């Protein structure tokens, strides 16, 4: 019987063909894949206060009610996807299985807790031109006045459905993309970044 294998990235190959530069090229965009531990799609009716509290207890953070925003507590991020739908991401540092915690914690509630960890990945773009690069394929207004930190949005970039998330006030964006489209998106990014330069972030 084989050993428990390590998870395989869907874009490793495309990313590895991007050179890594040590020097910071002023216009360059930096790309990397971020591996998260959990990607969970959660559906729950929050008109029931009990549900909200229960969720808050499990997640350690309230679920965002405001559309297109993210609530974060340490290693746990909760992204608004719809009025009764959230994406929960936990980083590799997060010790527990959020999937288990949710399943157990919400027993008896009408909820849908779906593991998405293999179905999608996160591409991070960073650097002063990352916003311009995204604008080439994305119709959202990404100006910091409109799409500031703590914002997220489901949208379409270069014919690919993507969840964009602005992490902080630096020009850095997470793109959450379905695995089957991910290496196409990287190809597109490589092309769009031609005039700025693209480096693999270490």
């Amino acid at each position, binding site marked *: 019987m084989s050993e428990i294998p390590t998870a395989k990235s869907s874009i490793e190959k495309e990313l590895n063909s991007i050179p890594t530069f040590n020097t910071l090229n002023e216009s360059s965009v930096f790309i990397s894949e971020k591996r998260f531990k959990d990607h969970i799609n959660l559906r729950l009716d929050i008109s029931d206060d009990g549900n909200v509290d229960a969720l808050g207890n499990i997640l350690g953070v309230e679920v965002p009610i405001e*559309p*297109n925003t993210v609530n974060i507590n340490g290693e746990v991020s909760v992204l608004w*996807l719809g*009025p009764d739908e959230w994406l929960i991401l936990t980083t590799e540092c997060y010790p527990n299985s959020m999937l288990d915690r949710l399943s157990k914690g919400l027993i008896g509630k009408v909820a849908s807790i779906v593991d998405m960890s293999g179905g999608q990945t996160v591409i991070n773009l960073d650097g002063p031109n990352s916003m311009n690069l995204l604008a080439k394929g994305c*119709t*959202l207004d990404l100006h910091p006045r409109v799409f500031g930190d703590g914002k997220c*949005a*489901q*949208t*379409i970039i270069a014919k690919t459905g993507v969840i964009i998330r602005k992490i902080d006030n630096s020009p850095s964006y997470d793109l959450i993309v379905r695995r089957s489209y991910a290496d196409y998106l990287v190809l597109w990014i490589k092309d769009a970044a031609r005039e700025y330069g693209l480096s693999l972030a270490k």
Partner: protein
Amino acid sequence: MLMIDCPWCGNRDESEFMYGGEGNIVRPQDPESISDDSWSDYLFMRKNTKGLYMEQWLHSYGCRRWFLAERETVSYEILNTHKIGEINPESKS
């Protein structure tokens, strides 16, 4: 190039949405008891209004919610959008 105000997500570009045709068409309560004629009316006949038209859209690349939009079909101006259930569908015979 429409800019559509998703009742949940706000203004988004046309490319994020899927059109669902006339809105507020109510499925007959008991299809088996109605005539072919009435069934055909439900299935195929559309208001297709030149002017203000109530239609349904899906924010397919966004929050995945269906919603209603009232749009002027000559100027394409969208007067308002509504979450499903916010306004009462007109009852149909």
